[in-house]
């Protein structure tokens, strides 16, 4: 009996730990973007998944002609797979659809760097990154 209790306690602790580990990197990354967004604009309060959605679908026209929007390759529906101009299928960007997607902050930054350049023709602001990421986490 006692053993069972200890085991189940240990199991719950492990589960809790792994859940924290899953949520951890994204929260830390969002906190970093938030600090940077506040530093850039004192009036900034919080990220908005709604703004992130508009950003995801907006055609910018500052980058490459064949990729005017995030949605050009990543699908307007973030829970569905996307398609790169190379013909390669891209896993869905919604966190619920591809759970491990945002576990590595360096990888997230790498793709913001590449894709913002291709779509907007410039780097994304911390607020844009935070809004977009919040949208994906909400999906």
């Amino acid at each position, binding site marked *: 009996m006692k053993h069972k209790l200890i085991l189940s306690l240990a199991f719950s602790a492990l589960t809790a730990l792994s859940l924290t580990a899953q949520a951890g990197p994204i929260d830390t990354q969002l906190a970093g973007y938030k600090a940077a967004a506040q530093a850039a604009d004192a009036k900034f309060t919080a990220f908005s998944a709604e703004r992130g959605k508009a950003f995801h679908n907006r055609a910018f026209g500052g980058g490459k002609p064949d990729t005017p929007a995030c949605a050009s390759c990543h699908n307007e529906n973030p829970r569905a797979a996307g398609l*790169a101009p*190379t*013909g390669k299928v891209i896993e869905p960007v919604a966190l619920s659809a591809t759970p491990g997607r945002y576990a590595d902050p360096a990888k997230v930054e790498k793709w913001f760097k*590449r894709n913002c350049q291709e779509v907007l023709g410039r780097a994304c602001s911390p607020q844009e990154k935070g809004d977009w990421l919040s949208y994906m986490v909400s999906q």
Partner: protein
Amino acid sequence: MKTKYHPLRPVIFAGLTLAASALLWTQAIADGKHFFPPVADAKVKEECGSCHMAFSPAMLPARSWQKMMGDLGNHFGDDASLAPQLNAEITDYLVRNAADANNGRYGSKLMRGLSATSAPLRITELPKWQREHREVPAWEWRHKEVRTKANCLACHVDAERGYYDDD
């Protein structure tokens, strides 16, 4: 006394023969001209296989890989640059498995007709590649499930495992 054979004996024999020839056939393809070992390195797969299929290193000569990895900031119009250490590791893998490495075991046939000094960056520029695909009509390349000549998988369904049979 007459030996009694199992009634299914001919069927079993036929099945075994078929299985054996299927096995031989697979082996033949693996050693044949249409096999290009897929990328086996996790980092290379990740960095060279996110935007397009991770092409087999055996599809270009070492000099092409070196040239490409030396100009990732302008990779067919995209900035695909990598940290220097990672770039060096990936270049090393590509060069070690290039078409002209290992005595050209997998890649030498695809290099036929290519001058020893030219270092093409596109596999589709190789003379042998162009000869092999000369019968593919333009409308097929434009098909919405093909879109680009870089999309090997659209026609070569087993390309990710390294097999590029005539389809």
